[in-house]
């Protein structure tokens, strides 16, 4: 039940206070705490968030990943100020925790190297993360050392490639049939199908 509801600001202060230097960057985004954390600090951060009495982020909402390789950071609005560094971390794991008592959200962004993304598994802290990590692994090709059985969740064994990466082109329907809307209004070719 909701004990003492925190406003976004003091939730941010509490989180930064509790985590100290483990966090690369912390800010508020639409009333939710946004943290950028290094991969090796992740398990520590998640454990603190869950166990710290002042925070009690006990509800594991989800873990997923975002492939920001084609995200246009240029016009400044990108997630982080230093755009150059952002370009490197173009794939990130996103962990979202929620504190039912204090009613505030924490988004943890873990920036990973694009070629070989590896992020420690948090199934030790939240056992529910197992399925989420299996999905992120098969969809983004992220390695999760420490995961009990990292097998595919949705896709079949013989599926090559990682579908949710931007590089994975969705096999468009165009080779099945061409797009009916392709005709321009004024030169609509007569005698279509």
């Amino acid at each position, binding site marked *: *039940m909701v004990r003492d509801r925190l406003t976004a600001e003091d939730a941010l202060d509490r989180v930064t206070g509790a985590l100290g230097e483990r966090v690369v960057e912390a800010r508020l985004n639409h009333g939710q705490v946004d943290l950028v954390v290094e991969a090796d600090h992740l398990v520590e951060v998640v454990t603190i968030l869950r166990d710290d009495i002042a925070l009690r982020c006990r509800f594991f909402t989800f873990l997923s990943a975002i492939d920001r390789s084609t995200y246009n950071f240029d016009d400044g609005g990108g997630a982080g100020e230093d755009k150059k560094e952002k370009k490197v971390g173009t794939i990130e794991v996103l962990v979202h925790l929620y504190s039912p008592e204090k009613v505030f959200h924490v988004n943890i962004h873990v920036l990973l190297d694009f070629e070989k993304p590896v992020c420690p598994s948090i199934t030790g802290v939240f056992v529910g993360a197992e399925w989420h990590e299996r999905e992120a692994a098969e969809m983004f090709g992220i390695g999760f050392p420490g995961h009990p059985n990292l097998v595919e969740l949705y896709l079949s064994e013989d599926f090559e490639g990682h579908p949710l990466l931007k590089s994975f082109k*969705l096999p*468009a*329907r*165009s080779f099945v*049939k*061409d*797009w*009916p*809307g*392709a*005709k*321009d*209004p*004024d*030169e*609509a*070719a*007569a*005698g*279509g*199908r």
Partner: protein
Amino acid sequence: MALDHVDERLERARKPGFGIGLLKGMLVLLKHLFKRNTVIQYPEVKQDLSPRTRGVIALKEENCTVCMLCARECPDWCIYIDSHKETLPPKRKGGRPRKRNVLDRFAIDYALCMYCGICVEVCPYDALFWSREFEYAEYDIRQLTHEKERLSDWMATVLPPLELEEGAELPGQAKPATATTPAAPAPTQGATAGTPASTSSSAAEARPEQVTEAPKTPTAVPEASKPATAETAAEPAPETAKPTEGLKEATEEQQMDASATTTPEPAAKIDAGGGVAQEGTQAEVEEATAAETPAGPTSSAVTETPVAQPPAPVKPTPRPEDLEAPEAAYTRVVEAQKEAGSSPQVAEARAKVARVKAERALTQARAATPQQAAADPEPSGAAAAGEPEPAQGPVAPAEQDDPVPAQGPVAPTEQDDSVPAETGDEPQGAAEPAAEPQSAEGEQPEAAAEDPEAVYERVLAEERSKGSSDPVATARAKAARMRAIKGTLGPADG
């Protein structure tokens, strides 16, 4: 905080009873043994579905100008359209031949369709409607592709939209008027639809009286169109394409209020009371965003063709005195547009439209005040100046506010429907079948006083005096001359 009172009941519920619960359960069944059943015996008794039910999509061929928006917007790629270009003889002797898109094939493959209604929503010319028929199952999946003949047959089963709940407010109106759209009497010959009034008896007990009672009795509710004076945004603001209730099927007059140029961001002025984008049917403005466009057709931004669709119920015509003179409207809008930063052509086009609107309201007010004569129906969508290049889409907004709806593109059947309550069922001559927008605008054909050539010189001089640029002046003069030849009222000679 878990609720305590629930806990007692929960704890009591969890204690094992001694068969009493079983008996209570059995009594519930016995009770139902003697209740009247609520089952509709389907084939004999049909459920009286709402006109909004998404059963099948019907096509009104006359309205389709092959703008391909629906085919592009469809997420499932299930609309196939073919058309060819035809050159039509000039409208009048002096005019140049006009090119027009004629529909060859318009097919919807209902095997793929997911009935989302994006096409019906996105169609700028109200050519697609929802009909509530759903009994068109086939044995062979190929027959599920309905060609345009069959789609037109479905038009017979399209029902007029429903009256709105009291609080409903149309975007274009300040006061919440229950703008009903007195529509054509629901076509009773709809094969299986059964008259909407016949609510299935056995279901009546279970279902409160079905919403659509008898075919909408058209109530001459103050038509919510914008009286000229109130309407400040005279320029062709892409004001709400569809009335709030977006039930365009029934708006008997259909307007093509296309802003002349592809305004990237609609310089829309918010008219009273409503948001810019009409609530339901946002005409799809952005360029075709086909689902996975393989190469992404580099189609030019299709002209944003918001279809102005003010409800067409009869409006109390304001007195001529308090209407703004057309010329004043024209000048006012040009300045407004200039400092609003739009390009000269945009400003000028908008001003022209505003002038036509103002003048139209003026003449209509003048015509309506002496007697409730039904202006002869001017097919809407008439292009004020020059014929609409197909690509660019119809230009002039012929906002037809006259009491008698102009040729009803929406009329389900070819027979033009008029507002029954308004002036009786005086059969309107069916508008020319071809959707070729008649270029004449203006309503009361008065005998033109002067001969065309004199009109030409006079207008040319006038325009020059007013300082408009040369091409504009000649264009206006020629237009005036054409009108004189045709003998309709021009904007200037209001």
